[in-house]
C-alpha cells in the first residue's frame, strides 16, 4: 500500500514543473484512499511527500472546503443552499433530509453512513436542487427523488443522475449536440470540422494569431469583460522565462453554469482553443484549473486531452488538468495562481500583474473557458466573421444560464446583445410575477422588473443599466421571494467564501451577515439598514481583491432598491 502510494504520489508530482503545485492533488489522492478523510497521518504523508510543514498542509486542508480533516460518513450529502438552490427549494430538501436521517445539518448518522451538509453553490443552477454525494451530483431533486436516493444508497446502490434541462443554441459555436451519445469524442468533434482551426493556426505565425484574436475583440467571458487579445499583448517580449497559460475553469459564481456545458459535452473545443492559444503565446505547459466539485468533468477533459495527444494534436503543448479544492475566490486569477502553486488561495496584491509575474513568477495568461473556446472559431473564420455575431464592442456568442423562477431553466447560446426578454422567453417565461432579476451572476446589482425592461444582454448595455453582464448567469426572482432573505443568502455565500486575508471583506461580510440575519429574524433595528449601507459603500474598492465589491454591490442594490421590505421587518 505504502509503495503504491509512493508511486502514485511521484506520478502526480511529475506532472508539475514545481513540486509544491502537486500538494492539492496529493492531498486529494490521499483523502480518497482514506475513507474520504484527511486525517493526521494523511497530513503527515502529504507534508513529507511535498517537503513542507504539517501546518502548511493543514492550512490548505482547512482553507478549501473539499478536504475533510474530521471524519465524515460513508456518504457525504451536500445540499447546495446558495441563492439558485434557495430559489428552487433546496431548503425543503435539506429539511426533509434532516427529518429522514434524524440528524441536523453538519452531523453524521450514528451508523456512520451519512453526513449532511449545506454547501455553497455547486454550479448546477438550472438543475437544482442538487445534492452532491461524495464525488457525484444528483440534480433536479425532489423530496420523492431524495427518498429514492437515500434508500438506494442504504442498499449500496447509486441511482442515475438526472441532469436534464433546456438547451438552446442559436449560434452553434460553443455548444454541440449533446443528445448524441458520442458528442464528447474526438471522432465526433473532427467529424464536425474540429481541429481544422488548430491546423490552420499551426501554419500561422504566433503573432498573427494574437493579432487576429485582438482584432476579434473577444471580451473575457469570466465576467470582467476585458479583451482577451489585449491581455495577451501584455506578455513581455523577448523574455527568457517560460510562459504559462491557465484556463480558468473554476466556475463558482452563483447563477453560473456555462463553462461546464462546454467542458462536459464539447471538451475538444476547449482543448483546441487551449492548443491554439498556447501556440500563439508560446506556452509549452498549460493548465486547466477546474473546480474540484466537477471531478467527473475533469475526467472527461483528461480523456479528451489524451485522445487529442494520441491524434498528434498536442505536440507543441502539455495540458494539465488541475482540480481545485472548493473555493470561490480561486476564480480570481491571482488567487488561482497561488492555488496552482500549492498554497491557500489568497489573491495577490497587484501590481505586479500575472502577465509579468504570474505562475512561478513567470509571464502568465489566465483566460476563462468560454473565452478560449471562442478562439477556434476566430482563427477558422477570421475576426470579421466573429464580429458579425453580436453588437458593436460586444462581439461573439455568449452562453447564458437561466435559473430561478422561469418555466424552463437551462442554457442558451445567443449572440451578445440579445434582449433579455428573448432569452427569458426561450427559458419558458417567468414563473409568476417577476420582482427582480440578477443578470450576471450573484455579484452584480439586482435589477427591478421595471429596470430590466428593454435590457440587452451585453457588457455595455448592462453597465448602462447600472448592473453588469458578468458571467451571464441570469437568476429570475419572482414576487414570492423576500429580498431581505435573498440578501442574507447572498452575504452568507460571500462570508463563507471570503479568503479571510483582508479586513473589510473578512469582517465586513461577517457583520453584514449578522445584521441581515437580525433583520430577517425580527431582531433588527432601523439603524442596521443604514449601517449595512455604510459598510457596503466603504467596502467597495477598499479590499485587496474584487471579492469585497462582489458582495458590496449586490447587497447595496438589494437594500437600496427594496428598502421598504427591509424596513417592514425591523422594529420601529
Amino acid at each position: 500500500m505504502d509503495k503504491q502510494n509512493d508511486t502514485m504520489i511521484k506520478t502526480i508530482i511529475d506532472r508539475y514543473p514545481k513540486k509544491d503545485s502537486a500538494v492539492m492533488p496529493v492531498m486529494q489522492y490521499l483523502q480518497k484512499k482514506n475513507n474520504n478523510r484527511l486525517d493526521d497521518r494523511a497530513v503527515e504523508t502529504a507534508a513529507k511527500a511535498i517537503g513542507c510543514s504539517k501546518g502548511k498542509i493543514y492550512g490548505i486542508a482547512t482553507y478549501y472546503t473539499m478536504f475533510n480533516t474530521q471524519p465524515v460518513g460513508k456518504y457525504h450529502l451536500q445540499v447546495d443552499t446558495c441563492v439558485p438552490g434557495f430559489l428552487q427549494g433546496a431548503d425543503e430538501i435539506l429539511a426533509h433530509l434532516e427529518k429522514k436521517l434524524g440528524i441536523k445539518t453538519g452531523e453524521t448518522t450514528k451508523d456512520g453512513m451519512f453526513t449532511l451538509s449545506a454547501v455553497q453553490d455547486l454550479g448546477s443552477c438550472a438543475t437544482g436542487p442538487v445534492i452532491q454525494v461524495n464525488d457525484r451530483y444528483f440534480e433536479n431533486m425532489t423530496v420523492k427523488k431524495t427518498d429514492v436516493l437515500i434508500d438506494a444508497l442504504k442498499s449500496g446502490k447509486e441511482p442515475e443522475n438526472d441532469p436534464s434541462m433546456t438547451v438552446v443554441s442559436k449560434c452553434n459555436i460553443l455548444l454541440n449536440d449533446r443528445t448524441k451519445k458520442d458528442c464528447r469524442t474526438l471522432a465526433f468533434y473532427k467529424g464536425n470540422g474540429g481541429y481544422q482551426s488548430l491546423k490552420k493556426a499551426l501554419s500561422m505565425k504566433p503573432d498573427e494569431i494574437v493579432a487576429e484574436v485582438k482584432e476579434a475583440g473577444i471580451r473575457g467571458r469570466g465576467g470582467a469583460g476585458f479583451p482577451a487579445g489585449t491581455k495577451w499583448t501584455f506578455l513581455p517580449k523577448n523574455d527568457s522565462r517560460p510562459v504559462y497559460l491557465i484556463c480558468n475553469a473554476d466556475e463558482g459564481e452563483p447563477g453560473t453554469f456555462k463553462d461546464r456545458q462546454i467542458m462536459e459535452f464539447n471538451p475538444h473545443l476547449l482543448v483546441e482553443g487551449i492548443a491554439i492559444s498556447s501556440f500563439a503565446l508560446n506556452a509549452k505547459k498549460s493548465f486547466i484549473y477546474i473546480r474540484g466539485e466537477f471531478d467527473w468533468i475533469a475526467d472527461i477533459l483528461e480523456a479528451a486531452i489524451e485522445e487529442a495527444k494520441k491524434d498528434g494534436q498536442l505536440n507543441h503543448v502539455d495540458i494539465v488538468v488541475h482540480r481545485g479544492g472548493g473555493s470561490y475566490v480561486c476564480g480570481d486569477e491571482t488567487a488561482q495562481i497561488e492555488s496552482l502553486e500549492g498554497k491557500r488561495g489568497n489573491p495577490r496584491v497587484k501590481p505586479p500583474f500575472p502577465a509579468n509575474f504570474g505562475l512561478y513568477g513567470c509571464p502568465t495568461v489566465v483566460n476563462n473557458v468560454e473565452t478560449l473556446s471562442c478562439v477556434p472559431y476566430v482563427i477558422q473564420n477570421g475576426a470579421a466573421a466573429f464580429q458579425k455575431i453580436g453588437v458593436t464592442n460586444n462581439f461573439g456568442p455568449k452562453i447564458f444560464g437561466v435559473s430561478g423562477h422561469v418555466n424552463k431553466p437551462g442554457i442558451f447560446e445567443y449572440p451578445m446583445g440579445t434582449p433579455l426578454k428573448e432569452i427569458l422567453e426561450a427559458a419558458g417565461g417567468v414563473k409568476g410575477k417577476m420582482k427582480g432579476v440578477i443578470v450576471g451572476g450573484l455579484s452584480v446589482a439586482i435589477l427591478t422588473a421595471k429596470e430590466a425592461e428593454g435590457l440587452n444582454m451585453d457588457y455595455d448595455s448592462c453597465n448602462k443599466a447600472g448592473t453588469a453582464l458578468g458571467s451571464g448567469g441570469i437568476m429570475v426572482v419572482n414576487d414570492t421571494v423576500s429580498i431581505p432573505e435573498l440578501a442574507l443568502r447572498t452575504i452568507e455565500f460571500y462570508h463563507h467564501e471570503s479568503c479571510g486575508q483582508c479586513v473589510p471583506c473578512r469582517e465586513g461580510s461577517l457583520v453584514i451577515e449578522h445584521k441581515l440575519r437580525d433583520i430577517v429574524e425580527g431582531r433588527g433595528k432601523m439603524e442596521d439598514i443604514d449601517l449595512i449601507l455604510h459598510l457596503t459603500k466603504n467596502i467597495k474598492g477598499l479590499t485587496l481583491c474584487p471579492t469585497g465589491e462582489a458582495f458590496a454591490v449586490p447587497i447595496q442594490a438589494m437594500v437600496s432598491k427594496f428598502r421598504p421590505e427591509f424596513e417592514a421587518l425591523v422594529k420601529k
Partner: protein
Amino acid sequence: MDKKIFIDGREFAIDGTKTVLEIARENGIYIPSLCYLKKLGPASMCRVCVVEVDGIRNLQTSCSLMPTDGMKITTGSPRVIEARKMVVNLLLANGNHNCLICERNGDCELQEAAYNLGIDIPAFVVPEREEKDESAAFIIRDGNKCIQCGRCVEACNRMVVNEVLEMGNRGGHTHVICDNDLPMGASSCVQCGECVQACPVGALYEKKGVGKGRPWEIRKVRTTCPYCGVGCQQELHLKGDQIVRIKGVEGAQPNDGHLCVKGRYGYDFIYSKERLTTPLIKKNGKFEEASWDEALDLVANKFKQIIKESGPDAIAGVSCARSINEDSFYMQKLFRAAIGTNNIDHCART
C-alpha cells in the same frame, strides 16, 4: 531633474526605494497600519494604511504603494478617515478587545489606531470565538484579540523558518494554527518568541510578564545576551529592577530583533538565590566566601604545583560554549603559552 511626490501638500524627493508609508513615517506624517512590519515588507491585508491618490479611483494601501514622479497623496481626507474608521471598527467588533485587562494596553497598534481615529465605542459587536491557549511554556495565545494580520505567521515561516504557525480555515473563521491545529504546547514550536515580538496587539504575549508591569511603568535597558557568543542585542523591559520581558532590538546587529528561547525567556537565573556572587573556597569540606585575589592565587599555585609534579600535560582546559571567540582564543593561549599544554577542548563538542 529630481523626482518628487507630494504628501498632504508637502514635497518629498523620491529615489524609488521607499514606499509612501515609509516616506510618510520618516517625515512624521502619521498613517496607522496593522499588518505592515518593516522587516517582512508590505502585506496590504489590514487596509488601515490607505491613502487617497490623485487620479486613482480606489484608495491605495500606502505600505505597498511605490510612489511615481509627481504623485499627489492625501493621508487624511474624509474619505480616507471614513474607510480607516470602518476597518478599525470592524476589527474592534470581532473578538474581545478589552484594553483594561490586556497586557499590551498602552503598547498596542490597534489601540493606537482607534485612539487616533477617535473611536470610543465600537460601532458593532459580534461574539467572541476562541479559547485562550495557555498550553505553551512561555507564550499565551488569545484568539479573541487576534486581528489575523498574519505577521506572526510570516515571522515564523519567513524570518525564523520554524514553520510552525499557519493560517487555518478561511473567511471569518480564519485563525492562526500551530502545526495541524494543535495547542501551542503540544506543537513543534520551540518558543523562540519571534511571533510575540511581531504581534501588533495582545493576541500573543509572554506568560512570565503577566501582571508584572504596564508599558508605562517600564524602563528599557539595552544589553547583550549572555548566553552564547553571537552577542544578540536585547532590550530588557524592567519594572524597578525586575525583568518584565525581554525583546530583541529591531534593526540592530547581529540579530535584528530575533532571540532564541534562552535569550528571550531564560532569565530567571539572575534572580536565583543559588547564583554565585563571590568566589568560594572549600575549607574543611565547606565552601567559604573568598576574595578574587585569594581565589586566583590558590588556582595559580595549584597549577604550578601540578606542573612541577606531573608536567603540563597533566592539565587540560575546557572552554565554555557561551564564550565569545576572543575569550576562547585567550583561553587556548593561556593553556598553550603559559601552562604549556595542547590539552584544550570545548564543552559543546562532547
